[in-house]
């Protein structure tokens, strides 16, 4: 039995902000879930499955993903699941659920507020608990080691990092949900002092509070709901070792493998790629891993340098890529999500305007 093809049919996100002072997660999610449904004139009762991605560590609230369900209203009881990961992985789970043919629609959402806690300390807790976590290395420090390795290998220089940041922040000006945008030149950015050498402030992602939601639909249901569904032609994710010292930080083997698993390679290139590269130099590593040529539009939304809500930014990459297929500006697009320090784990979602014959 062949699996039905699955598509992104709706996408919504909140404004991505430095600090959401007044609303809790449920209050942030409700308008976004309302919008992702009203875009395609459905309600929660039309959803066969609900899957979310978030981390309780961010706000220090145990089982916050359970209370977040109040934003959906799960009565009568629904099929529901959660991953303690970026919403991109929740989308992966929902995709497999739809491929099974059991259900034909799914709501995927994620929420992430980094402002209530100490993000640098919290992210250090994901490191190996014996040798690394007790040293509390924060993400900018680890990313700086990676950037230094890239420079030492002769693969990039600091000016290229600044060029990525200048382009991303410039593109972000057209993104109404972006947190950080500017019109500064590479030369201007190069004049900034180092935060952690060789990374200057512009090469670091902002700290962001935000939420996002996507609706997936299978087969004919997708075309009923959406004029131009963004069909998922393939999706895969791979993880590398926990031991940073055992990895070549200048390449992203897991991204390359995930891309091949998703059917993205030199013969099937894309028009748009939304890459989850929280640090500027990581875009260069991902471009190489995905073999993206200069003709590919990379991060027209501004990417994670414009807004990086932890647990949400990866799902937004898939949503932004899908948006460009749904609005007709791209035939093929790619959404990428990362997790862990220095691009440890990577997911690639290939999207197409053409309906595939099967699920994958």
């Amino acid at each position, binding site marked *: 039995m062949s699996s039905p093809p699955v598509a992104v049919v709706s996408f919504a996100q909140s404004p991505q902000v430095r600090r959401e002072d007044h609303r809790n997660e449920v209050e942030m999610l*409700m308008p976004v879930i309302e919008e992702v449904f009203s875009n395609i004139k459905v309600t929660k009762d039309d959803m066969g499955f609900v899957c979310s991605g978030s981390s309780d560590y961010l706000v220090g609230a145990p089982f916050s993903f359970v209370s977040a369900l109040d*934003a959906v*209203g799960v009565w009568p009881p629904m099929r529901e699941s959660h991953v303690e990961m970026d919403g991109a992985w929740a989308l992966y789970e929902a995709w497999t659920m739809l491929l099974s043919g059991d259900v034909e629609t799914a709501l995927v959402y994620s929420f992430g507020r980094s402002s209530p806690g100490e993000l640098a300390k919290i992210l250090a807790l994901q490191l190996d608990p014996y040798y690394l976590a007790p040293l509390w290395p924060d993400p900018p420090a680890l990313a700086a080691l990676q950037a230094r390795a890239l420079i030492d290998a002769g693969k990039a220089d600091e000016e290229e990092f600044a060029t990525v940041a200048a382009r991303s922040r410039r593109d972000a000006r057209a993104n109404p949900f972006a947190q950080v945008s500017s019109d500064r030149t590479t030369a201007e950015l190069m004049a900034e002092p180092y935060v952690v050498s060789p990374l200057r402030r512009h090469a670091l992602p902002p700290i962001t509070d935000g939420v996002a939601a996507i609706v997936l639909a299978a087969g004919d249901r997708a075309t009923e709901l959406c004029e131009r569904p963004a069909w998922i032609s393939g999706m895969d994710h791979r993880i590398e070792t926990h031991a940073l010292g055992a990895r070549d930080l200048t390449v992203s083997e897991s991204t390359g493998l995930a891309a091949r698993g998703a059917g993205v390679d030199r013969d099937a290139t894309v028009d748009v790629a939304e890459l989850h590269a929280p640090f500027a130099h990581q875009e260069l590593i991902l471009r190489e891993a995905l073999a993206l040529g200069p003709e590919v539009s990379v991060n027209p939304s501004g990417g994670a340098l414009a807004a990086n809500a932890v647990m949400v930014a990866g799902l937004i990459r898939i949503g932004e890529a899908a948006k460009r297929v749904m609005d007709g500006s791209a035939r093929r697009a790619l959404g990428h999500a990362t997790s862990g320090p220095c691009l440890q784990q990577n997911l690639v979602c290939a999207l197409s305007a053409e309906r595939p014959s099967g699920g994958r």
Partner: protein
Amino acid sequence: MSGQAPEPVAVLETPIHVDYSFTAGLAQSRFLKGLAEGRFLGQRCPRCKKVYVPPRGSCPTDGVPTTDEVELGNTGTVTTYCVVNVPFQGQAIEIPYICAQILLDGANLAFMGLIQEVPADQVRMGMRVEAVWVAPDELGPTMSSVKYFRPNGEPDADYETFAEYL
């Protein structure tokens, strides 16, 4: 290689301390500020009309914002309860005492409260109670603003009126 294996490390201490600031949210902030004024503020679902107190800003059944604010009175019904007989460190009240689920009149969600001014063995399901607040100058945005609930002398509520809220 020396023949002697080192003593195995069995314990490794890596202290973790993380501070958080808490965002109650719009609805719960209204509720907490109400407590500071000696009032119970709930919110009504525009769809199913249920009144939630404390409110969370959404109807967990319908998934829609609960925008209508409702002020509730001081009286309610014990829907169910337990008798605390076990002493524990930091216990502030003399045992035995009663922890009860209290459904305020007009509310569709019960919350937990203490029952005092009545012997523990006389508390029962359906007992009518009223809130006893701390002194006005001690009121604050916290559940501690309610000292406890006590019987208000009304006849017990019929089981059917609270059967849904056990």
